[in-house]
């Protein structure tokens, strides 16, 4: 990671005081960072473990250790597996759409011209909105009362008249995916664009000289060289989608009939709605945390191998 760290072989006197100085200062400048991490990150994680092992109701507070009851209750809960299944389904679909769209848009606008700059801004603008405001916006847009969308769809015969696209599990899933794709495409376009710009231009020149077509160039040059960027986008996208909450909370609240219940929503549901049990919520949080750390380290390893 760094070249300076192994230089401590022979240390003259002067250098060691300088080193002590550097040590003191280095620690000092990093101190605020450390304080935040300890107070807001380490302590809550430890407390999370403690809560996951305890009988801890929302209204009643801590009533002592009950390990492993919370975990048993979580695993046995009828929505546990369905919510994992749904979260994975959602993650796969969103990831495919965002990566393809992100790369596609990036290919369209990668050359810096006036026209392309306008396009870029248009694609990027949604990503400046918050997830909550984007969800509220589409909530209105989807509503049969004021939104134009239902009228268009029912004219096409896709939804029942007066019905809502949020009314059935499948259509609610797709409606939510549209929100996310709208909100995040620009963001992934940007990441992909940066990757594209790192590909040396003469490679393309050479390929064109050899008479390769657009598709051929894309497949044999762009795609392989973009692999690290694509893997990075994959990591972001998978992590973000697994933790999906705001959009479903606002658009469907997990309904209809629990068909759009994501894992993170289930945490909220355990804590505040159905169970009002912080112990169970903490147990599920801990499971999600561990799963995510595992998934991330697998993906990171994939990324490292690819960059070599």
């Amino acid at each position, binding site marked *: *990671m760094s070249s300076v760290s192994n230089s401590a072989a022979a240390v003259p006197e002067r250098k060691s005081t300088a080193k002590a100085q550097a040590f003191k200062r280095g620690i000092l400048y990093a101190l605020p960072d450390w304080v935040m991490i*300890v107070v807001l990150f*380490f*302590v809550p*994680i*430890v*407390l999370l473990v*403690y809560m996951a092992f305890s009988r801890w*109701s*929302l*209204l*009643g*507070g*801590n*009533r002592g250790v009950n390990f492993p009851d919370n975990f048993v209750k979580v695993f046995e809960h009828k*929505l546990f597996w369905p919510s994992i299944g749904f979260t994975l389904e959602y993650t796969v679909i969103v990831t495919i759409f965002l990566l393809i769209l992100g790369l596609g848009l990036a290919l369209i606008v990668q050359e810096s011209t006036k026209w392309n700059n306008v396009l870029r801004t248009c694609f990027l603008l949604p990503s400046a909105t918050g997830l909550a405001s984007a969800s509220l916006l589409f909530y209105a847009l989807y509503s*049969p009362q004021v939104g134009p969308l239902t009228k268009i769809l029912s004219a096409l015969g896709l939804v*029942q*008249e*007066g*019905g*809502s696209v*949020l*009314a*059935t599990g499948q259509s609610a899933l797709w409606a939510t995916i549209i929100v996310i794709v709208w909100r995040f495409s620009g963001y992934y376009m940007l990441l992909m664009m940066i990757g594209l710009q790192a590909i040396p231009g003469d490679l393309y020149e050479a390929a064109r000289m050899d008479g390769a077509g657009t598709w051929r160039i894309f497949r044999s040059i762009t795609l392989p060289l973009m692999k690290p960027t694509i893997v990075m986008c994959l990591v972001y996208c998978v992590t973000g989608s697994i933790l999906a909450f705001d959009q479903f909370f606002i658009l469907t*609240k*997990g*309904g*209809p*009939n*629990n068909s759009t*219940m994501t894992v993170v929503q289930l945490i*909220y*549901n355990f*804590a*505040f*709605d*159905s*169970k*009002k049990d912080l112990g169970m919520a903490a147990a599920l949080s801990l499971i999600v945390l561990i799963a995510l750390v595992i998934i991330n380290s697998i993906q990171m390893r994939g990324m490292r191998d690819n960059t070599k």
Partner: protein
Amino acid sequence: MAFNKVTRALAGIAAAAMLIPLAACGGGSGSTGAADTSDIPAKGTDDGTTITMWTRSPLERQAKGVVEAYNKSHKNQVKLEIIPNDDMEGKVGGATQTDSLPDILAGDVVRIPYWASEGIFADITKQIDGLDNLKDLQQGHIEAGTVDGAKHTLPFITDVSVMVWNKNLYKEAGLDPEQGPKSIAEFTEQAKKIAALNKDGVAGSYLAGQSGGALVFDLFPSVWADGENVMNDDGTEATLDNDSMKAVLDAYKELANTQNGLGAGSKEETGATWTAPFANGKIGVMPYPNTSLNDIFDAEKSGGFEVGVTPIPGTKEGKTSTFLGGDAMGISKDSKHVAQAWNFLYWLMQSDTQKEVFADNGYTASNIETLKTAYDDADPRIQTINSTIIDGNGKTPKSAAFNEGFNAAGSPWQLLVQNAVWGKSDLKADNQAVTDVLAGN
């Protein structure tokens, strides 16, 4: 990168950090700060304090009326916050964590038993027992907040379910506009006549398929009218597989299978807009909350459709019942103004007050005496509503797990109705799923 070193250091820091919360959380967080109610004057204190209060959105109109009347006549001022119905549980839970409950907390009477048992409310047994007209008050709202003999709550607003029908649509369909359904069979029959009008957007009836709260409110009274029950007395076991429940669900299933039988969106209605279709004149006949009728009565005066009101029937003719719902209220454990808060509660329980804020505005009072005496000049339909309370057939179900079993989004009760009306019904298994929750599994 020496990963071992990192892990070891992390473990060390984590171990050190472990000591902090353990030391801090030893006491538990639920038992703190129960409001002291020992020296409240019988009538409370009116000294110009600002009192905060929460209630749920369905009762906004009535709640605002009550609070306005109090604020006009007292030095104390109540600051009312209206919480969306679905968010109430989370809001109260969050507030207990942040010690920010309002002075007076009013909530859906079916949620009160759980809140009371978890120690959300201050014990005001002495004050409640000291009320002269205690026996006239809506008992279900007091019982809901009673834990081991300790009383915590009084009725705030009474909301009952009644059968309503659209007289204009009835005329069009050739039905007698003055006769509502007297049994579930008649209900189905009349709804089908409306459905047969085949008018754009008009349907026979409506059901809030995704709202457990609206569903208990609409469907339970028919079961009670037949003398059946929905739960055992302790609220630990569901008895929803009885014949009455089945007959009621079958009636809705029949309507669901009829063209225009149930309004569009019934299956998906989450409760957020469940009263709107009838209010917009699109529905023939349905069980309805009386608190939402005031708006329709108002609209009627300015040219809206005419509405009929009758008690909710059972499967047999002659017996009716209602869901004695609404909000009960108590003083929260976080309240720092218990004497002032009690002043509000005491004031609202007085017969004069009940007459002034409820009866005179056409709202339903929580005091039986007031219901019997103060509505002589009222709309006969309001008297019909009141009669459902006076006759004593109405019920308020009580179970500590009621919210999870019935009201929460995606509750087993909601799934039971969904299966029975729109899907493949297995009433026994679905009833067992409700029992599993009620029994605390």
